[in-house]
């Protein structure tokens, strides 16, 4: 997904304890470790209340006559970089008689804000794409109605963040450092710490976390890696080392990075970017010109949910099921360059070969992100602009 614009708040910086979750994925090991590490001194614990019991009844479709839902028209709101194949909803419409209309908002932050503004009187029935960095904003404002999809069993537990089932994980992706392999003078960086080394002076471009999802992902990675008290020093070193910061992904990738004629060899992008470089190369190539640094990735998880106040809760629940079905899930990768949440969905061969997933992504708990993102970006701005 695309140059998405994200966040910050002018609130005083709060020191916090946070949980660093090194989640495993792809099923190659079964010990996702959630290590709550109380870092630094906590003056005031800042976490969001979003994961407390909302006391809502989940939508129950077991007793519903599904034929009675035929003829319903559902609206699904999504971020503006939501793309699926033409006719992907045809089989759903044929099977259920429910028509699906897609409405796109702007970036994820705007979409969530619009949902909060219209809570109880939503513009659509279902939302696609609220991510783990905005999840608690949505949950705190009660924009969703819970529903437990039968297909939830196909989803890895690491992706399920709300035990009250208000949202259903539908996809995930890794936000990673990418480098242009030919353009580096020496060996590629092996960790995000390496980027502060003299060797990579003025070769790295990232995005403003206030206005870009990958930019936010990288900031969160550094906070997860260096801790609440350590990331500031790292960023000071990065700034001294000549890091470039652009407002959005496009400006970084096509403006500063080698790909669009810029002169920087390292860029903050997606784990799947090399696949796109391969598929959309001109002239065609056998090997992508770029690689993702797997030890630098922030795990982004996206969810779908039924919007509270919908007139069609049961039909919406059926749509959630469809969104999680292999038919829809297998359509996702080549359209949006993100990974299906349904572990039974087949990945395109290019993804298997050129977009390996990291086994140790950086993640932070959504309630911690919600409570601190504004203070963090505020602090970040001070450091980088200093």
């Amino acid at each position, binding site marked *: 997904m695309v140059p998405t614009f994200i*966040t910050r708040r002018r609130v005083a910086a709060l020191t916090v304890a946070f949980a660093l979750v090194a989640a495993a994925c792809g099923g190659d090991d079964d010990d996702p470790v959630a290590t709550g590490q109380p870092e630094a001194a906590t003056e005031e614990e800042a976490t969001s209340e979003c994961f407390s019991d909302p006391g809502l009844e989940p939508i129950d479709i077991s007793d519903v006559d599904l034929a009675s839902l035929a003829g319903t028209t559902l609206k699904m709101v999504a971020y503006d970089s939501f793309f699926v194949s033409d006719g992907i909803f045809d089989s759903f419409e044929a099977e259920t008689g429910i028509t699906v*209309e897609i409405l796109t908002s702007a970036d994820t932050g705007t979409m969530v804000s619009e949902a909060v*503004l219209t809570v109880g009187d939503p513009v659509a029935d279902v939302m696609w794409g609220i991510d783990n960095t905005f999840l608690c904003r949505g949950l705190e404002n009660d924009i969703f109605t819970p529903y437990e999809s039968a297909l939830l069993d196909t989803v890895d537990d690491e992706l399920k963040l709300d035990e009250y089932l208000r949202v259903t994980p539908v996809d995930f992706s890794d936000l990673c450092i990418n480098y242009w392999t030919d353009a580096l003078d020496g060996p590629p960086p092996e960790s995000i710490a390496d980027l502060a080394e003299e060797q990579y002076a003025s070769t790295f471009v990232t995005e403003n976390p206030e206005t870009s999802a990958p930019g936010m992902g990288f900031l969160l990675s550094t906070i997860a890696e260096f801790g609440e008290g350590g990331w500031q020093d790292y960023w000071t070193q990065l700034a001294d080392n000549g890091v470039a910061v652009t407002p959005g992904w496009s400006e970084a990738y096509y403006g500063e990075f080698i790909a669009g004629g810029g002169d920087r060899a390292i860029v903050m992008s997606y784990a799947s970017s090399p696949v796109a470089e391969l598929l959309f190369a001109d002239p065609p190539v056998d090997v992508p010109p770029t690689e993702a640094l797997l030890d630098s990735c922030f795990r982004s998880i996206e969810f779908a949910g039924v919007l509270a106040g919908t007139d069609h809760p049961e039909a919406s629940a059926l749509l959630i099921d469809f969104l999680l079905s292999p038919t829809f899930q297998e359509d996702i990768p080549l359209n949006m360059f993100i990974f299906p949440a349904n572990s039974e969905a087949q990945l395109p061969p290019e993804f298997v070969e050129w977009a390996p997933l990291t086994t140790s992504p950086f993640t932070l708990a959504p309630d911690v992100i919600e409570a601190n993102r504004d203070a963090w970006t505020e602090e970040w701005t001070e450091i980088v602009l200093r």
Partner: protein
Amino acid sequence: MTATAERRRPAPNRALTLLVVAVAAFAVVFYLWPVTALLWRGRSWASITDVLGDGTTWRILWFTTWQAIVSTVVTVVFALPIAFAIARRRFRGRALLRAFVTVPFVLPTVVVATAFLTLADRLRLDEDPVRLPGTAWAIVLAHVFFNVAIVTRSVGGYWSQLDGRPEDAARTLGAGPLRTFWSITLPRLRPALLSSGAIVFLFCFTSFGVILILGGLRRVTIETEIWRYATQRTDFETAATLGLIQLAVVLVSLVVNSRIQERLALVERTRATAEVEAENAHRGRGAVVVGAGLALVVIGLPMAVLVEGSLATGDGYGFGFYRALGEQDQRIPLLPVSGWRALWNSLSWATIAAGIATVVGTVAGVAATSPRRGMARLTDIVFLLPLGTSAVIVGFGMLIALDDPPLDFRTRWWIVPIAQAVIGIPFVMRSVSTSLRSIDPRLREAAATLGAAPTKVWREIDLPIASRAMVVGAAFAFAVSIGEFGATAFLARPQRPTVPTAIFRLLGRPGDLAFGQAMALSVILMVITASAVLVIERFRGVVAGEL
């Protein structure tokens, strides 16, 4: 003088009153009510005192106003020679030049910013000692690029109908060309300058993409702050407070502008363009060269970068990216529909929006020159306000204001062209009202004395003069909507992607093909826009019967 002149104009008839009421209802439903709803929703004394008591707010307001004023002044200075070339001289390629200056207007900001950054790199303006990107001057330059067309075309249109004899007299009496321009022409152009200058000011005051992309991290304006608080922080109170500040500044500047406009309304002896051109055939060759040259540098260079990018395929230069736009790879869709389909969508939407804007804008333009002072001023200000209002405020406002029957409009497909028309209306209105004000009332009196009915007077005298202005305005309304100004704040239907959304999608994806096709689509957008403007201008002859 003006007052007496206006008092003698034929009284507005009933049809006009009805039209004005309809237009007023339009303004209320699609602008005033949504904005009020959002400001009311976010109302908070605490927030107001907080924001007003914070020195940062005033710094941001100062920068916002400063960059808007500087951008407007620089735009006007750049635009005048180009306007002269377009207005006063007949030369080969003039219509093309006129269409050409409109083109930047429709380009997505991301595309322009990419072109600017590439250009800065090529011209070595991004390294010491210059370092243009990230400075306030980069913002000003981009604003000039985008807005030069507004001044060029509306001043040019006005200028082309001005009688050249006062200048002749000055020259005969011994004044040099510069002196003549300074003390005779410039004052005569003031109504058009003020009129278009106000629009440029509003555009720069609420500019969003340019500030965000070219201004670097430190530059924020009221507009970008409203966007940040409303969309990224979900803080509607701060956003509404900032929206109020924005509205207050814009209102004050519009009231001042409107007063000056009225005071300056000069009665000009307007004449057929052809006559004026014939007289000017021998004059100001130098200025034409300067004008066309400026246009080429300011507007042409960044465009040339885009053209080059669209042709630079992996193995040399060619039309590969253009061909690819028509191809639809089934398995790996780079675009949901072919680029040509997106183009068709864009054109049809823009036609709808421009149609609405032209009709509503013309009525508003007539109302804005009505002898009823209060109504005239109110119309002018109400329809200019949207240009100075954050798109986020209007868009979010519509979500909470237009949600119940009979106004359940917020998810209707036509809300986007309507929103674009709202931005296009002021162009038509200002352009029409400026030229209507310049009509010598004696013309109308003479016609009335000779027995012409008021409608006939309007058809024979006002309409031919206003038609040029309508066309200038319509061309802008078209450009505004094809460029999708502020439409991101509204809910879109991805099933009908337009060119800007297709470009946005392409630029959001890695790979040479994606980038190259984005450049190719941008170039096509430029060519189509220029052609559309040429076609729209042809209509002028039809409307005015002066082919």
